[in-house]
């Protein structure tokens, strides 16, 4: 390309570079380059009727809410993970699964997503392609359509490669009342699998552990697992995914919302050996580390076994187990029965988790 322009120099205006390989400011101009970027890279992954229409907004066919008396579940989240790729996932899979899961936590069936991209000048298009392809695969697995989107480009140094915002819309069938405020004394607390995998996988990918680990992020769409649980156990009170802040922080939120006490049994909380080992070395507590493919289910005890069986049939719920129970007091607190039989408060994480010094 450079050679071509030098030959032409002086006789005609140089042919503009095509910039097929990396993102430049022009890709965010809204003009021809933006259109080409969308045509060449976004649409092949996300093609669907609503998106292909090419209007400023997607026109969607929702389930017949009036007849079914259902409601909508709507959620949005921004994804800024560094690095963009890690063992078990990438920012694209995360951006789809995170929002699909949030929408699903009201017992909704997720239907549609929007995706907004902030691209940093200089981002290799190859990276963008990999992320888009991963989003498409995750969306297919979750059976949701990405129906609207936006792309902006910011100057080099103003972003970390690629940020994604997704919003998700889902449908809640009539009669379903699921939420963090619904936990009742007497309920049991189930967990779909091991704690801390995602956080440790991302730390490892950053090279911050100083040692190798085989830990894979658990990032996954949980709507199919949740669908099975709700079919088997229709009276679920709470669904919540323990993402940032981990299990401890999420359960504290639920305890506060429902004004109940949650008592956990530490020995029943699954943590993979490799995650435990990494946490031991760094002085981290796996109960405060982020997960992206796990769900807490709180429900009446008589439906617990059916829900566990349903979870265990999903590829994302093989380690599902019962970890605790809901009590009335002390309200708004989470207590942990320790491995050696003591009891302590499991509090919210204060600030960021830091490795120990010695």
């Amino acid at each position, binding site marked *: 390309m450079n050679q071509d322009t030098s030959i032409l120099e002086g006789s005609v205006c140089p042919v503009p570079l095509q910039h097929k390989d990396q993102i430049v400011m022009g890709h965010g101009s809204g003009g021809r380059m933006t259109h080409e970027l969308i045509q060449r890279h976004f649409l092949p992954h996300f093609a669907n009727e609503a998106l292909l229409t090419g209007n400023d907004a997607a026109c969607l066919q929702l389930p017949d809410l009036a007849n079914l008396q259902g409601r909508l579940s709507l959620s949005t989240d921004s994804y800024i993970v560094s690095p963009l790729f890690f063992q078990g996932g990438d920012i694209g899979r995360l951006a789809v699964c995170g929002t699909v899961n949030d929408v699903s936590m009201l017992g909704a069936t997720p239907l549609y997503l929007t995706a907004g991209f902030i691209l940093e000048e200089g981002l290799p298009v190859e990276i963008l392609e990999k992320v888009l392809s991963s989003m498409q695969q995750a969306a297919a697995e979750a059976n949701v359509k990405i129906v609207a989107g936006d792309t902006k480009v910011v100057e080099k140094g103003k972003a970390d490669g690629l940020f994604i915002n997704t919003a998700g819309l889902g449908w809640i069938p009539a009669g379903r009342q699921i939420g963090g405020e619904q936990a009742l004394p007497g309920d049991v607390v189930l967990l779909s699998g091991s704690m801390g995998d995602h956080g440790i996988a991302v730390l490892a990918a950053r090279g911050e552990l100083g040692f190798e680990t085989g830990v894979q992020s658990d990032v996954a769409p949980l709507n199919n697992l949740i669908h099975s649980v709700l079919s088997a156990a229709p009276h679920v009170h709470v669904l919540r995914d323990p993402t940032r802040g981990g299990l401890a922080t999420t359960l504290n939120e639920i305890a506060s919302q429902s004004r109940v006490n949650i008592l956990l049994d530490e020995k029943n909380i699954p943590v993979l*050996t490799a995650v435990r080992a990494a946490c031991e070395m760094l002085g981290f507590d796996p109960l405060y580390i982020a997960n992206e493919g796990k769900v807490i289910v709180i429900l009446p005890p008589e439906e617990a076994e059916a829900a566990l069986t349903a979870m265990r049939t999903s590829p994302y719920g093989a380690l599902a187990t019962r970890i605790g129970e809901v009590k009335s007091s002390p309200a708004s607190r989470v207590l942990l029965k*320790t491995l050696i039989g003591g009891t302590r408060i499991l509090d919210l994480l204060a600030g960021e988790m830091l490795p120990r010094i*010695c």
Partner: protein
Amino acid sequence: MRFIDEYRDAHLVKGVLDEIRRTITQPWVIMEICGGQTHAIMHYGLDQLLPPEIELVHGPGCPVCVTSLELIDKALIIASQPGVIFTSFGDMLRVPGSKGDLSSIRAAGGQVKVVYSPLDAVRIAQENPGKEVVFFAIGFETTAPANAMSVVQAQALGLKNYSILVSHVCVPPAMHAILSSPHSRIQAFLAAGHVCAVMGYWEYPPIAGKYQIPIVVTGFEPLDLANGILMAVRQLESGKVEVQNAYTRAVTFEGNQAAQAVINKVFQPVDRQWRGIGLIPMSGWGLRSEFYEFDAERRFNLGQIQTRESPLCIAGQVLQGIKRPSECPAFGKQCTPQNPLGAPMVSSEGACSAYYRYSSAAEQLNSGGL
């Protein structure tokens, strides 16, 4: 996990606790030196399982907590200078100085980086030849070998842009200081297992002899702690005074000779200010003269500075085991992990933070904390 699970086994711990109950006939006050032990005790709820005759008092063994206010203020001055990359263990970022903390310097545009090891700081110095890279070398005997090694490496690499702000402290002089205090109620020590893994325990028989106090080298898992307490109680009940090792899988009498050699090569004993406690003679390590070029205090020529402590914080009394965190009027009110007034509320090894995070539901609810 081998070497971990068996030391957290509820049945084994219960067996040792039963033995403590059978042995004990009267109240005893035992200090665990190390903040890591304080946290383990609270984390596992071991304090609730011990017989009521045992009072555990928390020691000064938190490196973040005892780092002097003057050195933290110096760190803040250095970190806010242009052209400096200031590197530190994460815990130090939120320790309050006279004005602000390192994380507020970072938010204001200063280059403050969290590292997991001082050798990472050396690498940063290599990669940034145009910047002054300073590492905040805090800690007890446990962190000293790696911090010393970073200086040895920097010298070998010919780095002219690497220096360390040294605030090293040593355990035995602090034990002397605590036991010489007229307020001391301590009847036995659990010595810090990690410190002894480096230093051995040859420094302790003179302390045990001089103050007639049993000392038991103790590890960090529930079974280690229970065993250490049992050995201390047996000595106390039988009137014996010895230095015993309950952490034989990690600690020998001589300790880690290679680690001690690199410490002695780079550091020499110096007087040291302990935050909340005061000056303890020959209680720390400073760089030897042959390594002065790596001394950040000399490189940045900071001189004397004025410091100011929060008037509410009773960290000094907490660190000496005179008061419990929950006896502080600011505990859980003005002073929380989100808004710490003193270092013991910040560090993952600080006694106040341990109380705040782990103390039994009843105690925290009664104290009105949170």
